[in-house]
């Protein structure tokens, strides 16, 4: 811990919890007596309290928000704990210290979206990555829109109908394979939604979703694709990930509500 020196000890002395964002083993060892909560993509230091970051958030605010929400949900910290976060912004080494209060982060449901959905967190992450990549490059340079419904596939299939033949019929492809991501991009020019099962199997493309859209409250100005996404997640336990054709943002819906909004250009 070159950049921080000894004053870290003073900073962490009187707080309720210490959060380490993707720490190296030596940093973790040094602060082990404070029982730190480790937040990162992988639990490399075998910490007892660990929150998995599903996305490579560039923005420190997002990282802290996700970490605090996750730790609160899984009971690693009190809802009103004072927290010191040690994170890296510029380098691979810990270089930034912020002090926050867990109560300052209202429930946004981002942690819930990944950890508490029917689908596996890695599947949701993979689909988000495909959507982000699609948003960045578009399909052959033109902006495209896409709608992925992840999880609870049986129910989603029963609340939708095919627009045409299902190109994924009798195939066993899963999101996350590089070749499949290319396929998904190619098929994104088709109208309709992709249905993806809990374990990541691509069940169908070309689905026309028929949920009842009554009482779905999504921000005004979003189109039919977002309305369908919000409605299907309210009618089932699925998560919907939408790439908007008009503004290029990736949005995630759960239980009929907009949970997460990402700008593909920032990743």
């Amino acid at each position, binding site marked *: 811990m070159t950049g921080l020196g000894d004053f870290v000890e003073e900073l962490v002395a009187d707080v309720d919890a210490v959060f380490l964002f993707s720490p190296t083993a030596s940093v973790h060892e040094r602060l082990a007596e404070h029982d730190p909560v480790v937040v990162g993509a992988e639990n490399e230091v075998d910490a007892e309290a660990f929150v998995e970051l599903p996305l490579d958030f560039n923005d420190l605010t997002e990282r802290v928000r996700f970490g605090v929400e996750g730790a609160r949900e899984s009971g690693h910290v009190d809802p009103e704990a004072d927290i010191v976060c040690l994170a890296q912004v510029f380098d691979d080494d810990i270089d930034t210290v912020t002090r926050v209060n867990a109560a300052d982060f209202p429930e946004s449901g981002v942690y819930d979206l990944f950890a508490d959905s029917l689908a596996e967190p890695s599947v949701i992450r993979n689909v988000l990555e495909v959507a982000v990549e699609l948003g960045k490059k578009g399909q052959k340079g033109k902006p495209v829109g896409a709608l992925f419904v992840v999880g609870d*596939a*049986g*129910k989603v*299939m*029963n609340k939708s109908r095919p627009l045409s033949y299902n190109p994924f019929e009798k195939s066993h492809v899963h999101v996350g394979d590089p070749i499949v991501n290319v396929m998904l991009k190619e098929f994104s020019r088709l109208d309709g939604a992709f249905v993806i*099962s809990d374990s990541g199997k691509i*069940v169908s493309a070309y689905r026309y979703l028929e949920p009842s859209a009554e009482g779905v409250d999504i921000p005004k100005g979003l189109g039919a694709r977002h309305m369908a996404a919000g409605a299907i997640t309210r009618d089932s336990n699925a998560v919907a990930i939408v790439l908007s054709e008009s503004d290029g943002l990736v949005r995630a819906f759960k239980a009929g509500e907009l949970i997460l909004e990402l700008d593909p250009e920032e990743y």
Partner: protein
Amino acid sequence: MTQIDWPTLVRSLFSQETAFTLSIAILILGVVASYSVWRATHRVLDQAGINDVVEGTPFERTARSFNTSTVGIIATLGAIFAYVAAIILALSIARMGNPDLFWSQLTAYFPRLFVAALAIITGLVVGDKAKLLVSERLRSIKLPEVDIIPELVKYSVFYIAALIALGQIGVATSALLILLAVYAFAIVFLGGLAFKDLLASGAAGIYLLLSEPYSIGDQVRIDEHTGVVQEVDMFKTRIENEGREYIVPNRLVLRSSIVRIRS
């Protein structure tokens, strides 16, 4: 074994003087040859990425503490082999040593000793590596009892390597071989017994995945459970019905027959 009788051949070609000079030349050549063997082995193994593969195994660490590495030891072994071969060749050409049965036996024995040493080194490295790999795989299972499996894998590999080495240097290994056979049989037999249901489900799962008699979203009745198919994988089928999720092993799916409900 039909072998060319090199010393006799050499003696028939050269006089005693030239034979001696030749043997000295062979000794010098042997130095050069063993050095180039050392260099070549080093380069080939380095290029093959052996260093990365053996990284972190105890054998490599021990080697490091002697200021060398696994690659270094293998290369040195090769060099020693080349050099001793040169010495033996030189000796037999010059007839300086006792051209007895002893030498011809030693020449025959020497390569086998080399292979045995190589088998031991490979066994140690592979065993440790296998242990690391298995324990990496099992890392998510936080059970102290699980630690025994990587150890078991490690010592099994050690055992087989030791068997190969002992067989090479001509020690009677039949008793040890029988022990290995019993051990392998026990693993296969008990494993088969323990994994019987999993294997049956896996076989049924392959059939279900290939032929897809039902797919995700279908209304089915399997083994008294009615609902919507949520997921089919190798071992199980998940059926959901109004908040209840039935996880049916695939062997039961085939055994109980499938009812597809079309309304």
